[in-house]
């Protein structure tokens, strides 16, 4: 009704055209401050970092153009290799474990559990906490002298050793332990929301056909959750690649630089070693990795939405 009325009125009178023009562009006017800020502080700054990565800038930016030398230097720096290798260990373990545990917990919580609300809140509270706090807590728990190792000894496991946090080979795995603790609840919450949006009729029909429970989950429900899997994995991947705080608080990148991740390399190179060009090159590598995952994801999300609207 209202839509019809508006059509006839605006269509009929020519004097409305200016007002209508303003009415349509008002949203552009309102959006433009935010958009300008975004264009400068997100896209402009990314471009600036990209440009600096092609110069020999150290403490202050200089505008010589040296091509891709910084990238060559980057990929021949041992410290960067260690960081990338650590990410290659950390990311799959962190994403895999958080996703698997999150899914199992979501399915189990979806079995008409009486204390569901309380349990769900307990699983998810780590998400409200800073990685710095998480790192501080786990650093204490994993402390070889006074933490879990001592607990095991006190319990009678003489000679028990759990000193990963000071072992250059194992320190990266302590990052996995703490990060999984922090993010499993997130995966659980997304999966649970996905499970709750599945049409119960489909499942009922399958049960009438005599399908067993495991089979129903495996061949009906999990395939229906495919978009939810995508969401969880994409977000966790994004988190993994930008992980920084947890390393600082838990291992400090140590022992030595054995547990550094790329984001920590970038920060160190920029602010402690004042090699701006090299730092910018490493930032560009991080950015490209994330963009390769996020741009297709955002594009498909928005295209899906556009299709729904038509």
């Amino acid at each position, binding site marked *: 009704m209202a839509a019809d009325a508006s059509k006839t009125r605006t269509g009929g009178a020519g004097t409305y055209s200016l007002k209508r023009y303003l009415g349509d562009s008002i949203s552009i006017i309102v959006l433009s401050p935010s958009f300008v800020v975004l264009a400068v502080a997100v896209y402009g700054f990314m471009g600036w970092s990209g440009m600096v990565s092609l110069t020999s800038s150290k403490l202050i930016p200089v505008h010589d153009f040296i091509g891709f030398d910084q990238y060559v230097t980057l990929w021949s720096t041992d410290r960067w290799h260690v960081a990338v290798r650590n990410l290659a260990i950390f990311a799959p373990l962190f994403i895999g474990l958080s996703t698997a545990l999150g899914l199992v917990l979501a399915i189990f919580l979806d079995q008409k559990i009486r204390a569901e609300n309380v349990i769900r809140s307990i699983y998810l509270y780590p998400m409200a906490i*800073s990685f710095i706090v998480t790192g501080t807590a786990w650093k*204490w728990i994993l402390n070889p002298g006074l933490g879990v190792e001592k607990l095991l000894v006190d319990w009678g496991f003489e000679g028990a050793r759990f000193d990963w946090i000071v072992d250059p080979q194992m320190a990266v795995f302590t990052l996995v332990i703490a990060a999984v603790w922090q993010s499993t609840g997130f995966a659980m919450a997304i999966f649970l929301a996905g499970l709750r949006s599945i049409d119960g009729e489909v499942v009922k029909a399958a049960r009438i056909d005599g399908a067993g429970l495991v089979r129903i989950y495996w061949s009906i429900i999990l395939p229906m959750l495919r978009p939810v899997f995508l969401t969880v994995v994409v977000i966790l991947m994004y988190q993994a690649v930008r992980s920084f*705080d947890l390393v*600082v608080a838990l291992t400090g990148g140590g022992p030595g630089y054995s547990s550094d991740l790329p984001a920590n390399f970038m*920060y160190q190179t920029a602010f402690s070693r004042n090699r701006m060009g090299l730092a910018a090159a490493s930032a560009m590598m991080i950015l490209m990795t994330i963009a390769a995952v996020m741009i297709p994801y955002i594009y498909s999300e928005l295209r899906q939405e556009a299709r729904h609207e038509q």
Partner: protein
Amino acid sequence: MSNSVSASSGVGLNFGRIAGRVLVLGTLALFVLYFLAPLFVMITTSLKSMPEIRAGNIISLPRDPSFEAWRVAWQEACVGVECPGIRGFYKNTFLMVIPAVTVSTLLGAINGFALTKYRFTGHRLVFGLFMFGCFIPHQAIILPMARALGMMDLSGSLWGLALVHTVYGIPFTTMFFRNYYISIPQELVKAARVDGAGFFRIFWSIMLPISAPIIIVSVIWQFTNIWNDFLFGASFTYGANAPIMVALNNIVNTSTGERPYNVHMAAAIMAALPTLVIYVLAGRYFVRGLVAGSVKG
């Protein structure tokens, strides 16, 4: 989310066999312990004295619980050679968080309204550009941002930090409000336009009054993210202007003599307290923000 919180879906199949039920409840209980363990260890450690910490183990209960470590953490915990406690940093962070949350939420609301109810050609592309802004790695912008803050004479100040958080919060708040307003019927706005109401009038008297849930989501999300931030705080502030997480990290890494683990734990709990309290009081909205932040509303 709201309906999913209360009701179990049709998918909730009863595991008929008792064994299945035991497996489910046993696993859930085990993970309750796993998630609570670090919090338990933090609290008990913070209530012990250092001799007791050395003598006992991490899960032993404090024999003589005392808040002494909390008092020390608040008033005299050391950052480097100075020992101001965390209280000053606490105040800093609140002073910085409040304007950043307010401004970014307001801008997000009006952007979301413009993107859904007064559409223009290319609105989806513009939104896509905003959305990618949520997912940029901050490493890619800290170098130029540090210079920009220097040029604006805001280096190392709390105002500069508040500005940075406002700027990088806008994509999130815009996304929240946009995805919320998109489900509000277009007819509501059209009818008001026919009656001659302008953009701001409609925003103020029609949209804002029905926006309470998403305002709460946005405020909680922004507060939690900014309070918990470390990278921006460490990059753009120094000394007494540091926000709480930077201060906590400095306290924990200050090593003069024996490390006072009880004080570290007390400081960590206090640093986590504001966001934890919000989570306990408004967990529903927090979860909604998480879900909305990763999938469309």
